[in-house]
């Protein structure tokens, strides 16, 4: 099968560009067409700021998906982080400095438990993280007594809401965009330039072959879940900053993160996935929502469009894979 596509011809071809970037470019052109103000820093920086939590979430999710699993617990983890932060800070601005590390710790802990349940108890990740999702939602309600009180102090909201002004070229940069760039850069490096990333790909592609080749399968899988949990906590901190406290801030984010990763070409059940492309997928998804908003379409229509795009993206990806024979 591979004999026909001889190597020299492949080399002369242009490097393959992930289709998600074309989708994103087309969407951005459409947005600019609808709203010329988008080319101003206020336009695109606000867009990036809004997209940052989902993009970070997708970058974490892609680790789990590439390793062959799912993480459905991140949405309710976001809720738990936001509600928990408001309970712990208790309107005390100085508490932020220990609350944020605690929240990141909770994210890592949730990921660790997910990973252990999947690897040691051998529960399929779909069920394991679904159980975690229900549990965390219950915990968030339990913690806040059903109605979250108080608000987050400004020091905590700094990451999600503040802008750094007087930056040359772009005038201002939201703090969340800086967080996004740093986190995504780190996760992309970890995925595509280190052995951990290669192991994640290997166990997603063929876990038995990976184990025989000496990959510590369980350790890598648990790490993948912990990275996803950490990204959930980070997304929660950002969302708490600009969305405020409620018990449904995280609802639906797990599916959006999976959608974003899949739009970025990640293959469900493992073996294929890219952090930058998943971020591209998250930006594209946010762009779609922005566009539908500009068009003044009501929420139901947005749902239908999201569903259609989801199916179309995966169908297209499968079609391409069949053609290239990989």
């Amino acid at each position: 099968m591979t004999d026909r596509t001889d190597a020299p011809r492949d080399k002369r071809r242009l490097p393959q560009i992930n289709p998600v970037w074309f989708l994103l470019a087309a969407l951005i052109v459409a947005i600019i067409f609808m709203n010329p103000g988008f080319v101003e820093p206020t336009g695109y920086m606000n867009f990036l700021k809004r997209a940052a939590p989902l993009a970070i979430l997708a970058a974490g999710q892609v680790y789990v998906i590439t390793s062959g699993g799912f993480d459905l617990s991140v949405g309710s983890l976001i809720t738990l982080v936001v509600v928990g932060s408001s309970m712990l800070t208790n309107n005390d601005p100085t508490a932020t400095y220990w609350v944020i590390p605690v929240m990141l710790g909770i994210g890592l802990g949730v990921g660790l438990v997910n990973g252990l349940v999947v690897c040691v108890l051998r529960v399929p990740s779909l069920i394991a993280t679904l159980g975690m999702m229900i549990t965390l939602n219950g915990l968030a309600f339990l913690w806040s007594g059903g109605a979250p009180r108080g608000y987050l102090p400004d020091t905590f909201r700094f990451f999600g809401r503040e802008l750094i002004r007087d930056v040359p070229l772009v005038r201002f940069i939201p703090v969340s965009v800086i967080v996004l760039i740093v986190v995504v850069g780190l996760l992309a490096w970890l995925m595509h330039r280190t052995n951990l990333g290669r192991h994640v790909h290997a166990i997603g592609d063929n876990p038995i072959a990976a184990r025989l080749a000496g990959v510590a399968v369980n350790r890598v899988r648990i790490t993948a879940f912990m990275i996803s949990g950490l990204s959930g906590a980070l997304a929660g901190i950002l969302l708490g900053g600009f969305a405020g406290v409620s018990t449904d801030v995280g609802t639906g984010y797990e599916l959006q993160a999976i959608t974003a990763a899949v739009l970025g070409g990640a293959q469900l059940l493992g073996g294929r996935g890219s952090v930058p492309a998943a971020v591209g997928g998250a930006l594209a998804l946010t762009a779609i929502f922005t566009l539908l908003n500009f068009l003044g379409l009501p929420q139901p229509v947005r749902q239908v469009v999201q569903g259609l795009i989801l199916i179309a993206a995966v169908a297209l990806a499968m079609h391409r894979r069949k053609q290239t024979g990989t």
Partner: protein
Amino acid sequence: MSIAEDTPPRKAGFRFERWAPLILLGGAFAIYVVVAVATGQTQYLTFENLIAILSRSIALGITAIGQTFVILVASIDLSVASLISATAVLASVVMDGSPAMIVPAVLAALVLGGVVGLTNGVVVSGLKVNPLIATLGMSLIIQGALSAFVSNFAGEVPVEFQIFAYGEVGPFPVALLFLTAMAVIGWAVLKYTKFGSDMYAVGGNDEAARFAGIKTGRIVVLSHVICSVCAAIAGLYLASRLRSGAPWIGSDGVYDLESIAVVVIGGTVLAGGRGGIWGTMAGMLIFSLIDSVFNIAGVDSFAKQVLRGIIIVAAVAFYAIRSKRIVA
């Protein structure tokens, strides 16, 4: 007697996987009895009360029977919850209080289910879209289309159709008998028909099944149609129970994730090819028993949710832990 001597002894030993759902069910029942006795509420131990517990999870049971079929062929269906809402609303709008419209309404709901299932199946087996994504997309589409048209209770179910949910034959509710009949039919289909054994083959190893001459695509499509029609029936039941259809009854009951959890707790493997209807029924009973235990013990509703999540995982771990395979 002679048969017993002629046939070689079956594989010796205790087949754990086969009995695990029953063991779990026994455990859940024992906990129920112990909690009822310990809190001194022995009125919960009557026959009528057990029937009442069962009838609370009819809709979940019907949905889970359908879900068993798709999970057996290594697929999954996340669109059942929105489909339940859609068929409930459709049926109640078509009936609109008139007994003469019952048959058209039921037919319309079943056809809608069939079309959705067919689409799901074709997208999954024809376009090779991962079933999770395909049915999630379908769920978004159905829910979006539904909430574009209705935002509140719509239509009215005539009294004649409410028999489905409220009628009784002797001590048994009609719906419970209906669920039992569906389970028996589902079990018979899986055990005695070619379609049933083909399903196990496709779920066990899709490629091997194809090489053995099974038209795997058709099997997957058919099982999706069965699943969606079951969801449509659950929608009809809920419309009959609530006396009207509302666009949130499916998602409120979390029938998509709960039906999957019920099926998996019943011992059907998510990877396909192993499991069956009776396991699913046991899973449904476990779920309703646990809920009743929480109610009797007066557990706080938020703590209830936390415990539920842990119990789902623990129940699945109960037999998954023995497998040596690397799970997805």
